[in-house]
């Protein structure tokens, strides 16, 4: 399909190619979004478990500490490959999409667990004592006293991590998940020039992450302003 650049570009934006790119866009976004939510929930659990004080929980604390340290120090590509080959070794028969989803959830729990923990620790320790004096249970304290105050610290950086996960999912193309980068590879293999194809892919990534990082920065400014009161 070698022709002048203009015809190539009109060919590139034909129905099926645009559809492929849009499906890739949706897959990338879905991976990052689900990873972020699952990571948030499990990261919250990790943070709570790491903040326990009792002696009986010491082994759990150690495991959670090791988990959140290890998964932040292994490249996403290696995590992906480990999950991929391990799922084959135990005959789990997972689709490549679920392999990517599992690995993104694994790292998301580690990264967001750290964010949630720093948020919870930013609330002064006296608040816990005050809540206990008012006869709040542990869960009530978390729900009504700690979380409303920690929220401003937790939320802005998690948008940064959302953007980071969007960018990390590009590596999932390596195991054959049909997301945005893979769509670019397919189009490039179809014979389109690399510059318009990867240029479009990069623009689509930008369209996805820019509003999010912009929103995160705005939240950050807002919450910083309220804290300086």
């Amino acid at each position: 399909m070698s022709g002048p650049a203009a015809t190539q570009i009109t060919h590139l934006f034909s129905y099926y190619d645009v559809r492929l790119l849009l499906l890739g866009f949706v897959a990338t976004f879905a991976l990052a979004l689900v990873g972020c939510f699952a990571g948030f929930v499990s990261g919250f659990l990790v943070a709570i478990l790491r903040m326990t004080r009792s002696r009986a929980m010491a082994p759990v604390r150690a495991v959670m500490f090791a988990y959140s340290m290890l998964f932040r120090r292994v490249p996403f590509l290696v995590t992906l490959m480990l999950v991929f080959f391990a799922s084959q070794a135990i005959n789990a028969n997972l689709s490549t999409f679920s392999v990517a989803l599992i690995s993104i959830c694994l790292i998301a729990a580690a990264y967001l667990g750290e964010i949630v923990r720093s948020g919870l620790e930013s609330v002064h320790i006296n608040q816990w004592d005050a809540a206990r004096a008012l006869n709040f249970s542990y869960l009530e304290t978390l729900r009504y006293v700690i979380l409303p105050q920690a929220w401003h610290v937790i939320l802005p950086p998690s948008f940064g991590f959302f953007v980071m996960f969007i960018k990390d999912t590009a590596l999932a193309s390596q195991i054959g998940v049909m997301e945005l980068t893979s769509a670019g590879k397919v189009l490039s293999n179809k014979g389109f020039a690399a510059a318009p194809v990867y240029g479009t892919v990069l623009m689509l990534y930008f369209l996805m992450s820019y509003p999010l990082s912009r929103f995160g920065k705005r939240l950050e400014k807002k919450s910083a302003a309220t804290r300086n009161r």
Partner: protein
Amino acid sequence: MTLQFGPILEQWRYLLGGAWLSVQITGLAFTFGMLIGLVCAASLSYGRPITRRLVSAYVTFATNTPQLGQIFFLFFALPDIGITLSPYSAVLIGATFNAGAYLCEIQRAGFASVRRAELEAADVLGFSTPQTVRYVIFPHVVKVVFPPLSNQFIVMTLGTSMASIFGVEELTGRTYNLSAESYLSVEAFSVAAVIYVAITLLATFALAIFGRQVCRARIKVL
């Protein structure tokens, strides 16, 4: 399923050689990225509006698109205009391009942390410009900038793993080779993961000691 680490561990020299290459790529990209970041941060803080626009466009673009996509673009699109890059240089340029943007953001935050009143105080005390930079600006900037910088160094070390996709034989690339030769994929990638953890931990400690001793920045390890 039984795990056999023996055949992989026998190849430790090969793997550590790959790890050394990873560290080299990180070091080079970090050094060049620091220079780009410094120039960009300076022009963001003190430049003319048009340069500020250009620099902030570069920073937003580079931080909001995946490094893998950027390297794909460099590696596959540039040959069309007559620039053919080797895999190694494509990865290095991509990593530097990406690092420059992040390091620019970090250094700009450092510049912003110097208060105007302190500069005026230095002026009143008769400090020359080099003295002001050395004794007033530098200590402040380093203190603010050091923790995110060492964090960025770790992130970049992890980022070099994508060089394997372009055929550079660093740690991940060599792990691919080993796993293809021996069919011991899980074992090979677990060993690679352990080496990555070791490298980044070493880097964290080394940077923390450096920061404490040389830059007098307070750094929490782990």
